[in-house]
């Protein structure tokens, strides 16, 4: 039985802002299935009372003092931009949020 459908892959691709081709949809659906099957084995592991781990050494309260540091020169900031205008990053029209 398939865990992940072509439609579901398409939905995930939209969430992740990936324009995927039909061929990719088919390929990914099949490949993800195999991987997800393996992942499902985790469900059988008893983790009652276990605390999650995210890092090798548990670190707490890592803060920075509120001291200003130099920002990048604006030329350096804009130099990487695919398109800039008026010292800002230019982007094409954003889909209308207001009806």
């Amino acid at each position: 039985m398939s865990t992940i459908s072509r439609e579901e892959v398409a939905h995930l691709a939209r969430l992740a802002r990936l324009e995927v081709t039909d061929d990719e949809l088919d390929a990914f659906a099949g490949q993800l299935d195999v991987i997800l099957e393996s992942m499902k084995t985790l469900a059988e592991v008893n983790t009652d009372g276990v605390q999650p781990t995210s890092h090798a050494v548990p670190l707490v309260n890592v803060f920075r003092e509120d001291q200003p540091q130099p920002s990048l020169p604006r030329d350096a900031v804009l130099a990487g931009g695919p398109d800039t205008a008026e010292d800002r990053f230019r982007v094409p029209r954003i889909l209308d949020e207001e009806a």
Partner: protein
Amino acid sequence: MSRIIDKTAAELAADIREGRLTSVEVTTAFLDRIAAVDVTIKAFLHVDRDGALATAAEVDAAVAAGQELGPLAGVPVAVKDVVVTKGLPTTAASKILEGWIPPYDATITERIKAAKMPILGKTNMDEFAMGSSTEYSAFGKTLNPWDTGRIPGGSGGGSAAAVAAKMAPLAIGTDTGGSIRQPGAVTGTFGAKPTYGSNSRFGLIAFSSSLDTPGPVARNALDAALLHEVISGYDPRDSTAIDAPVPPVVAAAKAGANGDLSGLKLGVVKEFAEGADAAEPGVIAAYEAGVEQLVKLGAEIVEVSCPSFSYALPTYYLIAPSEASSNLARYDGVRYGLRAGDDGQHSLEEVMSLTREAGFGPEVKRRIILGTYALSAGYVDAFYGKAQLVRTLIKQDFEKAFEQVDAIISPTTPFIAFKFGERTGDPYQMYLADLYTIPTNLYGGPGVSVPVGLSEGMPVGLQVMGPVMGDDITYRVAAALESTQDTLLADTAPEISTDLRFAALNEDGK
């Protein structure tokens, strides 16, 4: 007479410091070697001849002026293209970053520069470090110097191949699931993944934040240890960095070279042995011969049980793609890198999608979709959340084992370098390459891969895993194993043909 490029980093550093060689001579020798053989191997995405020679000249001037210099001053290094280098192209081998020139340096880049090590260039890798063969680079594959029909491992195949082919005495890699150790094993080089947090991730292009660790690639343990100490240490710009002294790995490598491991207990993982059918017999044979050597040096072998290791692979393949799907969201064609489809017809939303479609390769897309799925509403507890719990069990297995033993050993990889294309069709077969390396990443402790022998004429690595912040023990064991080898495996690599017709034939006739 030994060529400059045959010398170890430690020898080169001493030669430069003591005036027997200049850094310019040394750096030039490696640049010339790159010019000669990299047309075949293709380990570098970018070579910075001028920059490297400028640093070398500075070192030579400093030596002439009698200045105090760091332990690797003047010794050139190659840097994996996932590490941000100010003014030098940095792409993570992805089209989406093609042409991007960073306006800042990673912390480890700053440390390399402060150590006055000439940067030869940026090495090839699997795109965004996702892969185990360097076949997923957007800019072409890197070939294994031992057999150009085979993969150099991944994701750090470029760094490993550069060191194996003597194009660099040292290189920087990053290890998220084995990307330093596995390429080390399949190219006959030494690779170390330090304790997570014992060095800085600032300026490392993120793949999986809770796993990524930069580390050294070298031809032997001592060279790696020297570089390890250059790049390691606390960094306030990385909130996950550990504020503690760097473990004394150079001293440990020197101690190990004496070849005495008496009193040391080395663990072998019962569950790895039981699942040994996943590994090739030739790999197991080479590894077991290495274990015998360790016993001869006085080590005691103790079986330890780590039942949760069998869940390491699925745990890893939930955590890493989940974090990656979020880390890679920033590549949207707005502030830097590629932009596609901006033709006046498409909205920004469409341009973002078209940019990401054009800029990311298939493995990156696969993992982004996998991670998006694992984090999506209704699944996050069952997947990412559950994986973090299982991660705790894996960590507990390690901690229990280290109550009984000083270090744990295993083969680094289940198989030797495979042929190009052999595993790209089936991602799961590719993921198996990291079977033995992934548990350490999930735990966060150190692991090194040291060349142990050959199978089918190809190198095999032995992995030494240590407790968190116990990096020194891994170097000591590895250096002891090296002391049993008359010639280092890294020095027996076949000479690379500089005949381009031959290289092309090998590549096509894989």
